[in-house]
């Protein structure tokens, strides 16, 4: 079934209090795809021509709203200076990282944001990768709203399994800027497995080979009775079809000879991409490279392409072999291999994967759409409930830099998330009152070879002799794979608080400013969310009270019951309106007004326990 598209202006206005839809979004390097699931059937949101792929390309024309998708891509050859593509490769990268890549980047870098996040200079604008990704997400959100005729306000957004904490945080921030509440960040290969597993009801150990435009992921999952357990994962957050394009563009430019501007490189990449896609069906490809300085003719045979990309494909298989070794699984023990990502259409990739695993890989679900399908299924599972369960892992070890720049790992890679781990540290000088920490992510032993996530200082440590203080640092990774760190001095029980300055990202203030600037009604949006939260909390309080009354109502007099019922009704009335303060006030009043009831229930519990009744009967 094709989803109905409404003409602009004819869209039925979403009701103010209506709960919006929750969609799945695959925010890809090359394309972005959005899907909606109902009754465990996911449907891709398509345009009038049936295409579900929105090119992840944004064009910034001065004085106009950003153009996203096909319209933006069309600007690429004529006005490369205002067009941004493959922005996903820069997500979570600090300004210092990008300056290092400077020469290879087809963008001009501007002054970094306060928190250290890099900014690109595009026309008259200065934009962070987060803002550019938010423009893409906003465009697909609007597209989905037009197609579905409903407000879309929540999403499961997928990220490469191998994305580090900085890149995951950047993705979540981009969704927030686009006015989407992120229900969960799900790893792309895991989402693909969900789409396949639910479709085929398969069981066993599956390898997901996901080669996208800019990222490579390889995950090993066990599927069993609705449980999707990630055994191990690995990848390269900067290896994908884009690299194939770069190799082909380098060949064309070398054939032309000379020096090329940033914009000419962008034009050459667009032509290389076209040649790469065509050569699978039309060998050899022949065409023109049109640059401002003049045109030149080039050709590409399939054999030439394969020779260019062979080392890149070999790199992916080396990563796959490492993941199998991590999990202690032999290639022949794998029940199935699934191909995900547009770059797995390249015949050489298919052939090499088949050779490595010794069996034909599955690709029956469109490899460009399968991740969005899985994301949509998970969005439905999170909002409507489900029997399936995703158990994912931390892709890269987390640690702290210690003396001599050596990394002490606190949480090892492939640990199931959520996870919390603590480690004790001590002072090394008499009377030391402060300690600084450097949080890093990666597998290398030296801190300068890993990803720096944050630096913070714990001060207010009571002066003691060296080695006497116990400073407990605690790492907690939530189900989205996002890290939070706390530290406290524990011998005195005195909590010394810490402050973190993310070295890669945006400060809270910058984020707040962007939210205000980017969402037309950011304040209203925030208020709506708080209102929903207050209603959920009030509903919980009423349900708990009703459950208590069902067993212990005899502890109350007629008059007491009437008072409680009145307080409950006040709360129910407040909930049906949209005044958050009055909901919270009524909920607080109900909580206070039933305190004596709770105490009587506890007394009854104690009396029963003392009377030798089996405690299991009480709590059961």
């Amino acid at each position, binding site marked *: 079934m094709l989803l109905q598209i409404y003409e602009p202006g004819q869209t039925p206005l979403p009701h103010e209090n209506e709960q919006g839809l929750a969609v799945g979004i695959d925010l890809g390097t090359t394309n972005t795809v959005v899907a909606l699931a109902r009754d465990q059937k996911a449907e891709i949101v398509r345009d009038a021509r049936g295409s579900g792929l929105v090119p992840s390309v944004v064009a910034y024309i001065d004085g106009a709203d950003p153009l996203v998708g096909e319209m933006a891509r069309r600007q690429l050859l004529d006005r490369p200076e205002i067009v941004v593509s493959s922005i996903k490769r820069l997500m979570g990268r600090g300004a210092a990282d990008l300056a290092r890549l400077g020469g290879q980047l087809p963008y001009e870098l501007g002054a970094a944001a306060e928190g250290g996040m890099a900014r690109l200079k595009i026309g008259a604008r200065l934009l962070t990768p987060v803002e550019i990704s938010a423009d893409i997400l906003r465009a697909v959100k609007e597209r989905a709203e037009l197609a579905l005729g409903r407000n879309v306000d929540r999403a499961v957004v997928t990220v490469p399994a191998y994305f580090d904490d900085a890149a995951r*945080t950047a993705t979540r921030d981009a969704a927030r800027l686009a006015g989407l509440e992120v229900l*969960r960040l799900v790893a792309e290969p895991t989402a693909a497995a969900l789409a396949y597993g639910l479709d085929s009801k398969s069981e066993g150990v599956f390898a997901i080979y996901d080669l996208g435009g800019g990222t490579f992921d390889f995950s090993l999952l066990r599927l*069993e*009775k609705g*449980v999707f357990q990630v055994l191990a994962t690995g990848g390269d957050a900067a290896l994908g079809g884009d690299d194939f394009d770069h190799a082909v563009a380098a060949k064309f430019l070398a054939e032309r000879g000379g020096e090329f501007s940033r914009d000419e490189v962008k034009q050459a990449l667009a032509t290389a991409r076209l040649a790469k896609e065509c050569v699978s069906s039309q060998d050899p490809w022949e065409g023109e490279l049109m640059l401002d300085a003049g045109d030149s003719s080039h050709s590409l045979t399939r054999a030439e392409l394969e020779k260019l990309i062979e080392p890149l494909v070999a790199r992916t298989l080396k990563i796959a072999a490492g993941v199998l*070794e991590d999990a202690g699984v032999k290639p022949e023990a794998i029940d199935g291999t699934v191909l995900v990502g547009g770059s797995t259409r390249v015949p050489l990739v298919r052939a090499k994967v088949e050779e490595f695993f010794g069996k034909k890989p599955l690709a029956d679900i469109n490899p460009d759409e399968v991740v969005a399908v899985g994301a949509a299924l998970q969005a439905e*599972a*999170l*909002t409507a409930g489900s*029997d399936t*369960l*995703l*158990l994912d892992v931390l892709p890269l070890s987390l640690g702290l830099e210690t003396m001599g720049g050596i990394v002490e790992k606190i949480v090892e890679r492939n*640990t*199931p*998330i*959520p*996870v*919390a781990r603590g480690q004790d540290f001590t002072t090394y000088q008499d009377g030391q009152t402060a300690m600084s920490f450097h*949080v890093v992510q990666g597998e290398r032993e030296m801190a300068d070879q890993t990803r720096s*996530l*944050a630096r*913070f200082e714990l001060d207010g440590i009571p002066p003691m002799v060296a080695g006497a203080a116990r400073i407990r640092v*605690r790492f*907690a990774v*939530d*189900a989205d794979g*996002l890290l*939070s*760190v*706390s*530290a406290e001095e524990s011998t005195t029980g005195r909590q010394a608080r*810490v402050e*973190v300055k993310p070295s890669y*990202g945006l400060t809270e203030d910058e984020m707040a400013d962007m939210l205000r600037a980017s969402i037309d009604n950011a304040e209203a949006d925030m208020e709506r969310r708080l209102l929903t*939260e207050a209603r*959920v*909390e009030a*509903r*919980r309080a009423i349900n*708990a*009270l009703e*459950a*208590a009354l*069902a*067993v*212990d109502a005899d502890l109350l007099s007629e008059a007491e019951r009437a008072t409680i019922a009145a307080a409950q009704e006040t709360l129910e009335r407040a909930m049906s309106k949209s005044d958050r303060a009055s909901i919270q006030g009524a909920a607080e009043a109900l909580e206070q007004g*039933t*305190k004596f009831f*709770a105490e009587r*229930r*506890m007394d*009854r*519990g*104690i009396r029963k*326990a003392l009377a030798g009744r089996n*405690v299991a009967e*009480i*709590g*059961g």
Partner: protein
Amino acid sequence: MQITPLATDADSARPAAAFGACWSCRGPVAAAALFCATCKAIQPPQPLDHFARLGLAPGFDIQVPVLDQLYFGFQRQLHPDRFANAAPRARQISQSQAVAFNDAYETLKSPLARATYLLALRGLPIDGEGSHTIRDMELLDDQLERREKLHEAPDAAAVEKLAVAARSDAAACLGEISAAFAAGNLAAARLATLRLKYLDKFADEARNRRALLALKSEPA
């Protein structure tokens, strides 16, 4: 990234009474209950050992498929994905529960971690102070000898041969550990566990070494 208070630590500090008050309906709830029998609210994790948390008898010999099924069963009920629409406090508790069960599962799944944990539980930790004996020194010598051979190994095949030998010795260790625990001989269990620890570490080193040799042998 942000800094947050130590929420779950406070949760686990609850007294191990037979029952306490449910945070949601404030009525009595059994200390070991995952959910309140009255209002169905999810309850915070209790300070339990990993075996008790998963409902297993403490011991070295466990059936991994049984462990998997128990773990999946608990995560199906407690994982944060089940509480995406719940009240904030319930979401937070679900995360602490999932963390506690992941920790228990990870520890018991790996034979080395399981043996190490069991020894600590029985009061004979492998890295305890003053616990190093002459036999430990013999182990260290063995480890040094293996390492020396590893660094002298000329190619990936030679490294693999050493790794295979270490893996087979490790398998033998598992049998020793199991027998020692079964016989109640903790000192023997501790020694075999230490051996297993060294052998596991050696296998890791062999893997790194092999990767390094493979890198060198590749044409530049």
